[in-house]
């Protein structure tokens, strides 16, 4: 059997940045796995956003399940200009985002994300990008803050037989 789970790109911020972009993603894999570990520079809880192929149209939505240490809840947003992949607060924030069947040109794109910030919240998210385009770039941003220096994002490709 051939091994698969191939690192495609990794970036570590040397200084704070409003966005992190992973571009020129090849279409040779079946799924993508994005591993995020980082913080924001606001010192407060911030929503982490994800956008594909620089599409800023209102073509995104998500459904969320989360627990914050005192209660569990669920929510969603629809017809938004970017989706949501995790809340970001503290150097302990880790999010693993699974972008399924990202290169197909027949269906909309669904991703699953698990956001983990030990000081704040744990989350499960399903997101939708209403586009049949193959995903060739991913841009991360934050609500009203920057990603802090040292934030690291690694993208892997998983290829099925």
């Amino acid at each position, binding site marked *: 059997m051939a*091994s698969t789970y191939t690192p495609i790109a990794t970036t570590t911020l040397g200084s704070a940045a409003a966005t992190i972009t992973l571009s020129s993603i090849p279409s040779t894999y079946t799924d993508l796995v994005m591993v995020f570990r980082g913080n924001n520079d606001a010192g407060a809880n911030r929503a982490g956003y994800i956008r594909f192929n620089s599409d800023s149209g209102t073509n995104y*939505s998500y*459904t969320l399940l989360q627990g914050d240490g005192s209660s569990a809840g669920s929510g969603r947003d629809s017809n938004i200009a970017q989706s949501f992949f995790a809340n970001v607060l503290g150097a302990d924030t880790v999010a693993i985002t699974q972008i*399924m*069947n990202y290169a197909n040109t027949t269906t909309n794109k669904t991703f699953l994300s698990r956001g983990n910030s030990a000081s704040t919240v744990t989350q499960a998210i*399903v997101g939708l990008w209403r586009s049949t385009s193959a995903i060739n770039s991913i841009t991360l941003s934050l609500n009203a803050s920057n990603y802090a220096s040292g934030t690291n994002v690694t993208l892997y490709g998983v290829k099925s037989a």
Partner: protein
Amino acid sequence: MPILGIIASQNYPRITNSYESIATVTVGSGGASYAEFTSISSTYQHLQVRAVVRSTSGGYAGVTFNSDTGNNYASHELYGNGSSASAGAYTTRADIPLMPSATSSAASTFTALIIDVLDYANTSKYKTLRSLEGWDANGSGYVELQSGLWQSTSAISTLRITCAYGQSWQQYSSFALYGIKG
């Protein structure tokens, strides 16, 4: 015991050498009532199924092992529907019921499932799976975490994912099985 994504940021060369594609089932235009992986080798530590599915009318994904249709399965679930979080449990079942899938009411939208079957070849333990599943259709959707139990000490050699309620997986549904080495 590396699980996809969990320690990927720590040591990815090890992950890349430990994760292998075993087989893929892709559903054609005629649909399929189930997807099945047979003759699964016992040479891995864990299995992972990565699937995107769509059913004719919201049938759930029922997981069974080794063609066992006895009431030997159980599960717990935690899910959100966009308004509230809920939990449930199932016992003495003939399958492990995963999330209802996206339906024809949500055009071109598929449910995503990632299922980890842990220590699947062990012949001393009952078998446990965990899964993350969800679909969003821009105004509706579910996201779910689940654990499942198969009360058998047999090594798993066959894994079937049935579209429940007599429904069918629709075209472009796909199921990929991976093995993770210890």
